[in-house]
């Protein structure tokens, strides 16, 4: 592995004095002086908000640093007994979940048969969704089954989702669905 070309050098004329100066150079450790250049810590004046990683189920604690209403940094919370400040690559990338040019911020609507989206107002969209839910519920509701049992339900509306979401969502969502008689409630836990 190590080459014999060094031997070649040793034979050559200038090498003797070269070694002396080379030795001086290498003994000098570092020729440039040591410096301390004061650094600006970019979260110095930031507000810190405790948060939790939204990816897998380990529940790593994070700290969100904000400045002027903008997120500037998200890193692990070293106090947490789950992660002691560690994060996986996804957890380390939470910042880009928030600050990301690919992120949608408007309500989109597509009419049956339409070839593209249309941007809708939030209120208009909610009004329409509530109407559709009511209409479908009313059309498909089963009060009593064929065998005479009281069931008070509809299976024509499917409520899907929840495993990456807060328990508060899970609670009020399933409460609303069951309150309306919608029983087909599922989330990722089963897939």
């Amino acid at each position, binding site marked *: 592995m190590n080459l014999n070309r060094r031997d070649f050098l040793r034979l050559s004329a200038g090498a003797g*004095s*070269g070694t002396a100066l080379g030795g001086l150079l290498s003994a000098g450790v570092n020729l440039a002086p040591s410096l301390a250049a004061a650094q600006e810590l970019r979260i110095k004046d930031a507000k810190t908000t405790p948060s939790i990683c939204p990816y897998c189920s380990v529940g790593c604690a994070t700290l969100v640093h904000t400045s002027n209403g903008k997120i500037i*940094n998200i890193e692990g919370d070293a106090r947490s007994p789950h992660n002691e400040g560690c994060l996986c690559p996804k957890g380390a990338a939470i910042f880009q979940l928030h600050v990301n040019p690919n992120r949608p911020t408007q309500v989109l609507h597509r009419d049956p048969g339409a070839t593209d989206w249309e941007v809708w107002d939030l209120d208009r969209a909610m009004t329409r969704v509530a109407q559709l839910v009511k209409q479908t519920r009313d059309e498909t509701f089963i009060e009593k089954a064929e065998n005479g049992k009281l069931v008070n339900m509809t299976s024509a509306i499917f409520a899907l989702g929840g495993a990456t979401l807060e328990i508060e969502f899970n609670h009020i969502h399933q409460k609303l669905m069951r309150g309306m008689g919608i029983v087909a409630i599922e989330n990722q836990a089963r897939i």
Partner: protein
Amino acid sequence: MAEPMGFFTDTTVCIGCKACEVACKQWNQLPSPEGGANTMSGDSYDNTRKLDGINWRHVKFVEQFSEDRVGGRWLLMSDVCKHCVRAGCLEVCPTNAIIRTEFDTVVIQSDVCNGCGACVAGCPFGVIDINPVSKTAQKCTLCYDRLQAGMEPACSKACPTDSIQFGPVRELRERGAKRVSQLNDGGESRAYLYGADEKMLGGLNSFFLLVDKPEVYGLPPDPKLPSRNLVPASMFSALGALLVALIGVFSFRERRSGEGEDRP
């Protein structure tokens, strides 16, 4: 000067998760190649490929499997700037952009660097390259800004298995030696520390525990300073100049006048 600080990267507990890569990008706000629309390298799970101006941590994946799969290994290693005690990049920088800090780490000041590329070629480990955004040479700073604020570097903080450990180099070397003997006692005789003593460039402040030859991990077995060639190369250049000068004197001096008639 504060106590020398560094990394001890124990490759035997690395799980190749790349949290270090992302945590580094997050803290230092580094971009991804092609805005993230990268291509697959086909080299195991490594799509980062190498350390450069926007990848200051790089996890390497080395698959070692024989045909019968017996005793197969998948070596994983998070590579980073070695923060050499005798640093090649620092030697060759013409602008003093590269400094040795109070933590004995090596930092490129992006506001000073003019992107000449000398350090890129000078680094014995291929750590540095130009960041296409800042158009300056960049590499791991060992989170100089965080260190000054008493915080741990982003990568070692994120590392889920403590494969990357941060601390005073003296302490890390003790820890590393202990881990090597633990592994040796447990039957892993191949474990050793790479760069933990002065023999390698005066010591690497960021050193590694490996279980195979350095070149298997893409590390030079015998890294050297670029300045090793300065004197010999200069001498030979001078020798060349001298010889040419002699030929010149021999060719052009006045007494040769009259010899130089061209044939028509």
